[in-house]
C-alpha cells in the first residue's frame, strides 16, 4: 500500500506532474535537434536544479531522459543522424522509410513501440530491483570493485570503436575522480601543490565540458548545414500494425531490459543487439533490412526504451550506472545527498517508488507528445545552428559556474571541453570518462576495504575471488574483456571468422 502511495506521489503534487511533462517534452526535442544531446542536457540541468528539492529535480531529469531516448529516433528517421547513441540502429531502416515518404508512419510506429518497450522496462525495474538490492547486500567490497571495473570496461568496449581507447578513457576518468585530498587519509593526490586542486575537480565541470562544450565546438564545422524538410502526414498507426509486431517487440523489449540492466551497457548496445536479433528471427520481411523494414525500426526502438528501466536497476540497487546518462543521474542523486546503492532501497524505499512512478508518467507523456505536435516539431528542428551553438556555450558556462559559484570551474569546463573536442575527433569515447569519474570513489574505497580485510595479502584476496561464485564470474568477465584485445586473441579471431572482422 505504501508502495502504491509512493508511486502516486507524482499525482498528488501537480507541480511534479508538470515537471515530468515539461521534461519529457524538452527531452524529445533535445534528443531530436541535431547538436543537442540528452547527456548534454542532463549534465547542464544538474547544476541548475542543484538548489531545488530532490523530487522536482528528479522529475525533470527522468522526463528528459525518457523523452530524449525516444527523441533521438526522430532525427535518425528524418535526417539519418542518430540524435542519441541508442538511435544508431533506428537510422538504418528509419531513414530509408522517410526517403520513400513514409516518415509519418515510421514516427508513429516508433512512438508506440517506444512506449511499449519503456513500459516493459519499468515493470521489470519495479519487480526486479527489490530482489537485486536484497541480493546486493551480500556483495563484498571486492564485488563492488569488480563491478565498477566491469562497468567502465563495458562502456568502453561496446559503445564504440577501439577498446584500447575506451580503456584509456575509463582510466582517465578514475584518475580525474581521484584528484584532491584522499577522503580516508587526507593525503594529496594529483594536486601538484596547487591550492585550487585540493578540493578535486568538479565532476559537473568535467561533464558539461565533455558533453556540452566539445559538442558545440564540433558543431561549428557544420554551421551551414540545413535540416531536410520532410513531409509528414498521418502518424497514428493502426491497431493492426501494432498487433503484427507485438510478438517481436516483446522479444526485443526483453533484450533491452537485460542489456540495460548489465552495468555499463545501455540503450545503444541494447538497440544494436535487438536489431541483430530481429534480422535473425524475421524470415520474410516485407522489405529487406536496411531498405526500410518495419522490423528494423520496431526492434531497436522497443529495446532502447526498455533499456531505460533496465539501466535504473544497477543504478538504484548497486550505485553503478548503466551508461553515460545514468552516470550523470547518479551524480545528481549524490548532489542531492542521496547515495544510490542497496541501502537507498532500504532506507528510502519511497524514493525508489517515486522514481518508478515518474518513469511511468514520463512514458505516457512520451506517447502523447510523440503522436501530436508534428507541426511545431518540424519548426523547432529547423532552428538554425548559428543560434543554437552560442546558446549551448552560454548555458554551459552558466551551468559550470552555478554549482560552486567559482570561475575556476568554468576554466576546468573549458579545458575538458577542448580536450573532449580532440577526443571526439580522434575516436576516443567520452562515456567511459564520465563513468570513471563517477565510480572513482566507489572503486577506490572498495578496493581498499577489500584488501584491508584480507590483511594486505594479494594471495588471500584472489583466494576470496576464486571461492565466491559471484566474484569469480565478475573477475572472469573483466579478464575476458582484456584478453579480447591482445594480439593473440585477435589473430585467433581472424583465423576463425576470416579477415573481415579484424
Amino acid at each position: 500500500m505504501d508502495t502504491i502511495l509512493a508511486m502516486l506521489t507524482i499525482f498528488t503534487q501537480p507541480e511534479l506532474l508538470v515537471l515530468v511533462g515539461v521534461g519529457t517534452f524538452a527531452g524529445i526535442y533535445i534528443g531530436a535537434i541535431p547538436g543537442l544531446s540528452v547527456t548534454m542536457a542532463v549534465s547542464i540541468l544538474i547544476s541548475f536544479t542543484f538548489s531545488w528539492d530532490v523530487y522536482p529535480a528528479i522529475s525533470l531529469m527522468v522526463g528528459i531522459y525518457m523523452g530524449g531516448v525516444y527523441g533521438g529516433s526522430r532525427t535518425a528517421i528524418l535526417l539519418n543522424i542518430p540524435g542519441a547513441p541508442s538511435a544508431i540502429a533506428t537510422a538504418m531502416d528509419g531513414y530509408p522509410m522517410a526517403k520513400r515518404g513514409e516518415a509519418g508512419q515510421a514516427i508513429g510506429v516508433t512512438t508506440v513501440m517506444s512506449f511499449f518497450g519503456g513500459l516493459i522496462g519499468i515493470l521489470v525495474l519495479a519487480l526486479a530491483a527489490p530482489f537485486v538490492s536484497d541480493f546486493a547486500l551480500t556483495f563484498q567490497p571486492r564485488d563492488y570493485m569488480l563491478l565498477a571495473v566491469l562497468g567502465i570496461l563495458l562502456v568502453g568496449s561496446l559503445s564504440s570503436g577501439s577498446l584500447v581507447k575506451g580503456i584509456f578513457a575509463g582510466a582517465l576518468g578514475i584518475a580525474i575522480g581521484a584528484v584532491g585530498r584522499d577522503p580516508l587519509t587526507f593525503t594529496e593526490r594529483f594536486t601538484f601543490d596547487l591550492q585550487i586542486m585540493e578540493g578535486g575537480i568538479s565532476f559537473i565541470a568535467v561533464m558539461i565540458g565533455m558533453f556540452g562544450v566539445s559538442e558545440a565546438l564540433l558543431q561549428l564545422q557544420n554551421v551551414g548545414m540545413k535540416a531536410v524538410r520532410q513531409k509528414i502526414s498521418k502518424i497514428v498507426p493502426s491497431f493492426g500494425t501494432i498487433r503484427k509486431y507485438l510478438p517481436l517487440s516483446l522479444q526485443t523489449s526483453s533484450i533491452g531490459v537485460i542489456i540495460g540492466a548489465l552495468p555499463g551497457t545501455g540503450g545503444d548496445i541494447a538497440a544494436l543487439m535487438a536489431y541483430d536479433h530481429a534480422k535473425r528471427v524475421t524470415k520474410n520481411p516485407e522489405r529487406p533490412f536496411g531498405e526500410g523494414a518495419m522490423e528494423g525500426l520496431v526492434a531497436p526502438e522497443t529495446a532502447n526504451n526498455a533499456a531505460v528501466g533496465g539501466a535504473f536497476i544497477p543504478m538504484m540497487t548497486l550505485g553503478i550506472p548503466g551508461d553515460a546518462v545514468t552516470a550523470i543521474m547518479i551524480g545528481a542523486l549524490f548532489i542531492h545527498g542521496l547515495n544510490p546503492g542497496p541501502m537507498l532501497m532500504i532506507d528510502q524505499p519511497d524514493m525508489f517508488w517515486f522514481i518508478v512512478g515518474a518513469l511511468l508518467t514520463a512514458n505516457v507523456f512520451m506517447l502523447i507528445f510523440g503522436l501530436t505536435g508534428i507541426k511545431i516539431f518540424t519548426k523547432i528542428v529547423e532552428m538554425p545552428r548559428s543560434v543554437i551553438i552560442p546558446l549551448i556555450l552560454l548555458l554551459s558556462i552558466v551551468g559550470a559556474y552555478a554549482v560552486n559559484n567559482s570561475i575556476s570551474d568554468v576554466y576546468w569546463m573549458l579545458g575538458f571541453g577542448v580536450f573532449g573536442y580532440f577526443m571526439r575527433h580522434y575516436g576516443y569515447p567520452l562515456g567511459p570518462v564520465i563513468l570513471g569519474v563517477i565510480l572513482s570513489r566507489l572503486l577506490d574505497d572498495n578496493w581498499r576495504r577489500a584488501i584491508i580485510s584480507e590483511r594486505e595479502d594479494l594471495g588471500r584476496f584472489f583466494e576470496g575471488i576464486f571461492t565466491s561464485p559471484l566474484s569469480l564470474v565478475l573477475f572472469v568477465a573483466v579478464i575476458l574483456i582484456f584478453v579480447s584485445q591482445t594480439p593473440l586473441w585477435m589473430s585467433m579471431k581472424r583465423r576463425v571468422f576470416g579477415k573481415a572482422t579484424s
Partner: protein
Amino acid sequence: MDPDFRGDSDHHDGTSDATPGGYTEQRRPGELGFAIFLSVASLFLLYSAYGISGFEALSAPGAVPMATTLVMAVAALVVTARTARFPLVPTETLGKDILPPLVLVFIGFLILFGLLLKPLGFVPTAAIFLVVSVKLLARKGWGYTFAVALGSLVIIWIVFRVIFTVLLPAGILPEAEFIQFFRNLVSGGAS
C-alpha cells in the same frame, strides 16, 4: 553487428555522441601527436601517482591512482603504436578539419567570457558574447543579430535567474531590483 559501426560513412567528425569520430584503419591529421601527448601525460601522471605513497601498502592512498595511471600509460602507448602504423587520411588537413580558425576563435571567446564574467557581470558579458557570435555565425544584418541574441538572453535570464534561482555574478547591473519585480510576477516559482 560491426562494433566499429558509426552511423554512416559521412560522420567521422563525432558530431553526435552516437558517432565518435576517427577512422578505424587510417589516422587523421594530428591524431598521432595527440596519442603521443596522451602517452607522455600518462607517464608523468604515473610518476606523480608514485609520489603519493610509493609502494607503501596495497591499501595506500596511492595504490588505485598508480594502477589507473599505469593502465592509462599502457593504453596510450598501445594507441600510439597502432596509430603510427596507419596511413594518413589523404583528404584532411589539421587547419581545415581538426582545428579550423572558427573553433579557435570560439575557444578565445570562451576564455574572454570567463575573464569578463566577474568584473562585468553575467548579463552584459552574455549579451556581448551572443551578439558577436550570432553575428559571426549567421552572417545576417545587425537587426536580426540583436533581436535573436538579446531575445534569447532575456528568456535565458528569466528562466535561470528567476525560475531556477541560479546565482550569477551581478556585476554592473542592478539585478536584485529586477528579480524582485519578476518574483512578484511569478510568485511561487519552483523554489
